[in-house]
């Protein structure tokens, strides 16, 4: 499976359920970013949820950016949280955390990257595909900011 063996300067993982209103903010941010950035050293993934198989691409990156929605916080804001690897204690596989994936990347593949989580607080998590206007603005602002940051900031692949 040689396709997955390239190394990455940055891996972006936006995740959430696009059928649950603002929960899809991270997923949609990744989709928007992918439309704008076309560099072989940057991979952008939009996911419904975090799963163990993400450990492998995470281990190939120099840094990873997670983007997720949050039920707490003021809608329309974006919070930037540095992450550190932390072992998981979940009994099921459907609730992997970014910290657990970082720890898994280290223990299975011998490398874990610098990692940041961008959290976009939402207001409406009911069934529906529309983002709340303030959340939509926050997504657009984050995508603009990440596009600029990724354009000027080159990190050597591991």
């Amino acid at each position, binding site marked *: 499976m040689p396709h*997955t063996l390239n190394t990455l300067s940055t891996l972006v993982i936006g995740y959430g*359920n696009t059928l649950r209103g603002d929960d899809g903010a991270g997923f949609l941010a990744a989709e928007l970013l992918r439309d704008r950035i076309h560099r072989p050293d940057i991979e952008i993934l939009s996911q*419904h949820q975090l799963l*163990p198989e993400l450990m492998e691409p995470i281990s190939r990156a120099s840094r990873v950016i997670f983007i997720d929605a949050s039920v707490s916080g003021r809608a329309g804001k974006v919070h930037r949280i540095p992450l550190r690897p932390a072992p998981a204690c979940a009994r*099921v*596989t*459907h609730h992997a955390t970014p910290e*657990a994936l970082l720890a898994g990347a280290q223990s*299975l*593949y011998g490398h874990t990257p610098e990692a940041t989580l961008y959290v976009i607080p939402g207001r409406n998590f009911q069934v529906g595909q529309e983002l709340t206007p303030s959340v939509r603005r926050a997504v657009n602002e984050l995508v603009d900011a990440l596009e600029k940051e990724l354009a000027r900031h080159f990190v050597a692949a591991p």
Partner: protein
Amino acid sequence: MPRQKIVIDPVTRIEGHAKISLHLDEEGHVEEAYFHVTQFRGFEKFCEGRPFYEMPSLMARICGICPVSHLIASAKACDAILAVRIPEGAVRLRRVLNLAQILQSHALSFFYLSVPDLLLGMDSDPATRNVFGVMEANPAMAKDGIRLRQFGQQIVEWLAGKRIHPAWVVPGGVGSPLTAENRDRILAGIPEALAIATRALDWFKNEMERFREEIRSFANFPTLFMGLVGDDGSLEHYSGKLRFLDAGGHIVADYADTAYDNYLAEIAHPWSYLKTSFYKPLGYPDGVYRVGPLARLNIVDGIGTPRASQEWAEFRDLDRGAVLSSFYYHYARLIEILYALEKIEQLLHHPDALDSHVRAHASVNNTEGIGVSEAPRGTLMHHYKVDRDGLITWANLIIATGHNNAAMNRGVLQVARHFVHGNKLTEGMLNRVEAVIRTFDPCLSCSTHADGRLSLEVELRSHKGELLDVCHTR
């Protein structure tokens, strides 16, 4: 001692939300057991009024694990509404997609959900009895599991554009032909995936001896088995006839897959949203049957790929008739992984693998269509009726987990009687009650066609209905 009831809620490491209740008699022996599926969605109802050609994409949303299975059964039902014979090239590509889906789903079931029990032990600490615990205990095996699932998902993405909820399978065929680049990428990955599948099979066969008690008590009883077989009786996941086999290994009947209404019936139980199917000629409960990997390897006369055939011959030596213990679902799943990889390789080496003719076009020519295929967990049936404008007026979905419902309930009772004694519960006892459910790899979101919450509960109740103990994980 009064009669009592134990509740396990939620059942963990399964796809969906459920609970188990165990009823104890006055001596503290398990008298009855129920597997309750507590989620409800009702896809059959809310698709009414939608154009039939939306159905594959709409039905794929039933599940995030096996959307491809719903896509395929749904598209086949729509092919029947169009009354078209789809191009051979489209059939081959649908087969590859279905096998890739089976590959990634089986890898998830075995490595992520069941290896924690098999590697770390049924009585090990539940806090680490998960895929992350496997990573600590046996990193190479964890990497194998991740790699195999990743490969299956990657094939789905290369063929269909995305891993979850792709819309590439359409009424009349598929949306686009296979490119040479993607064919070569898939073929390049097969040798490594075959090596992983072989390692997992060898490991499982060596470990089986440690699970004698579980083999003896995990839904190990006579039932019928059902699944698709090819015209020559070989293993089949896309189309063929539906075969029923009895516990002695004798063929009961081969039927046209689209005539399911003649030989299958469903009943509802008050304790579950999951309906129970049974074989009509024998009635309920004599007509209880099982589907999925164990059933498929029991009903066939041969496999059709070299390495999987060798493994199948060894597997069939486990019993004189059909292999009855549901513990062997794990074994059958691994053989099917091997088969899927070999078969994908065969299909992609076909001289017309890159054929550009992959879709037939027509308008509504029938007002009814039935699509049947084998999903990872067993036989999947989609049945639609439309009006002259092609709008859905009625839909019925019979899902693998529904076919297995009666056997899962009996299996829970058998395991509970074997391992649960008195009103003092141990975690290892309850884990075995859950683990028998995991052997079937049920998908409860599919089977109730639910509002997204996950997991299972075990209740202990007295004969007066008093709740004595509850275990659950959120």
